[in-house]
């Protein structure tokens, strides 16, 4: 049995210092900011790579985006040794909300690996620019796959076609829950940023280095693995994708009003030793109260 593995990735603004550019008002300067494979997409690719190394499989990576998003696919291929790359690119897809994006992705997944059904689909936890975390679960739902989010570790029982996953369910201000869940394949996994694969046996390490070498060669020639699909090739009705297919719109964008001035700060110059000493005295008084 060979697992059919899909990975959904996204080209995102690179927020690292040196690549990112902010406008004077603190907002992102999109024109000046470079783009790269999103950090969460990279982790999803890594999870797919681990699955391929440990259980064997055929990996299809896909992305919806402009033509330049192929560099995200190349980066992902380098991480996971992808066997095929799909880019869903069409002007009609632009500015889609999560539901209309999920419509394209689910249709694309059905066309992967010559139309075979996927056993496991990986996506990132959320995109670092949109940050909704909705596209993954919505794609899963449209596919009819069981959705497992916040997965920090997983193992598979291939004979019974069952996955066991550990999930970190964070409930802010309440508890964190570590949950172990079992589900029949196919599943859709949104991988948690805390996920870290461990290649801890000799055989895993050997397989991993062999695939990594292959990945490097493939990524250098990524275009031979790349297929670009528009709405026609995906058999998508233009009314259900992009802006026409999006229930939501961005109505307006405004600056969040400055928080009300709640205190009047005492200003101390950094070189003012007396000021710093007084501040420390104040700290010690408050802590010991």
């Amino acid at each position, binding site marked *: 049995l060979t697992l059919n593995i899909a990975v959904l990735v996204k080209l995102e603004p690179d927020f*690292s*210092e040196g690549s990112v550019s902010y406008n004077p*008002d*603190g*907002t992102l300067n999109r024109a000046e900011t470079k783009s790269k494979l999103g950090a969460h997409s990279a982790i999803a690719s890594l999870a797919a790579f681990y699955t391929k190394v440990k259980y064997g499989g055929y990996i299809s990576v896909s992305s919806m985006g402009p033509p330049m998003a192929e560099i995200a696919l190349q980066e992902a291929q380098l991480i996971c040794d992808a066997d095929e790359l799909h880019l869903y690119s069409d002007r009609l897809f632009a500015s889609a909300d*999560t539901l209309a994006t999920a419509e394209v992705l689910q249709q694309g997944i059905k066309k992967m690996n010559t139309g075979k059904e996927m056993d496991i689909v990986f996506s990132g936890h959320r995109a670092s*620019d949109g*940050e909704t*975390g*909705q596209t993954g*679960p*919505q794609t*899963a739902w449209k596919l009819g796959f069981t*959705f*497992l989010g916040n997965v920090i570790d*997983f193992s598979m029982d291939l004979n019974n076609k069952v996955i066991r996953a*550990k999930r970190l369910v*964070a*409930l*802010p201000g309440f*508890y*964190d*829950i*570590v*949950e*172990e*869940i079992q*589900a029949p394949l196919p599943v859709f996994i*949104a991988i948690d940023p805390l996920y870290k694969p*461990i290649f801890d046996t000799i055989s895993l390490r050997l397989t991993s280095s062999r695939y990594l070498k292959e990945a490097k060669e493939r990524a250098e020639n990524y275009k031979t693995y790349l297929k670009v699909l528009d709405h026609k090739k995906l*058999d998508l009705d233009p*009314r259900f994708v992009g802006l*026409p297919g*999006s*229930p*939501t*719109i961005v*109505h*307006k*964008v405004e600056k*969040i009003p*400055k*928080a009300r001035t*709640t*205190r009047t*700060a005492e*200003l*101390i*110059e950094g070189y003012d*030793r007396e*000021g*710093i000493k007084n*501040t*420390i005295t104040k*700290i*010690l008084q*408050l*802590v*010991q*109260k």
Partner: protein
Amino acid sequence: MIMITMNKIENNHRINNENYRHLFVIIESINNELIPASLEMLGEARRQMDHFNLKYKSNEKVIAIHLGHGIKDLSKDLISYGADAVIYADDPQLKYPINKIYTKIISQIVTDPLSLNEISPEYVSIFKKPRYMFFLADSIGRHLSSTVLAELDSGLASDINKLVISDLDIKHQHKTKGESIPYQKVLEMYRPDFSGFLWTTILCLDNKNPEIAKEFHPQACSIIPGAFQPCVKDTKRTGVISQFSPQFNEQDLKIKVLKQELVKNPVQFENYKIIVSFGRGIKEDPEANIKLVEKLAKILDAEIGISLPISKKIFHLSEKYDSIYITPNRVVGTSGRKVTPVIYIAIGISGATQHLDGMKDSDFIIAINPDENSPIKDVCDVFIKGRMEDVIPAIIEELSKRSGQLKEKEIQVNTYGKL
């Protein structure tokens, strides 16, 4: 295929505004304890619908939907906290919030007119879908909202911290084919963006453009925990409590939760009198500056927090520092955690509103920042104007002269077990 989609569109078009009613709130609980943010959401729902009913002279309800096992008795609390009605499903199979099972049952409840039999009999004959839906933007609600709205085929906005219901004239290339068309009872959903400086208003609107005509209801969102206040508990409030008997799909019951362990967040801000947080101001030498912050925190016995942009791993750090400090559970702000220590020290943090909202209730606030015009200055008691590279060593030096007055404590490493 085209014929089918045409029908889909026409049928959708026939549904009108009369067919959407009420605000449905998806309540979360763990081990039969209500998640506090559920009550915040319920409080906001109450305020919105009171306003709505007054404005539109109507009688639409706040309906709490609650799934679980052994949760029936919590229904009264939900009424006390503002719900007009509670629909609960209580079953051993619902003990854990398994996404697929919960999604199907919630979708059944909110599209079944008979759910309203006791709650609003006058609408049973026309009810098709909720008007509005609220979910929590936590690890459960974020996914549940996504899948429920995919099932209901409507729009969803995430991480909302302000809501307004209003009538708007909309002119949109696709929604209205460029014409100005009035929309009633629109839920304006305000969402702070990743920078924390911008508010985006998301609307979920029917397509009134005849070429793509389609209804999109409910208008739904997930709400940031901590964004709203709960109502004051009023045990005199009354409401309808009705039970829903779920039907399960055999295949879905093969999804099994084997174990759930409640773990405390490894970062326990609550246990510290002092919190020292750092932001993008570490940029000149990130790792060296984090070490400075770490040293200061050790001497002060403080926990370390970070600003939201830092959590996006914008700096190259050694794995050790990255894994200890650059984690979502250290983020202070409405996108992370709300803190109220005795002393909050903000280092190199300019003060996006979402950060300030998470720390401004601290007893005493000190900021260290070279830019006197940073918004953080408006919420702090002491503003030390200078580079952290200069100021922190000076503070450490002065503190060490009084070392007897403070005890040191090891900083804990943050790890979760592997499977």
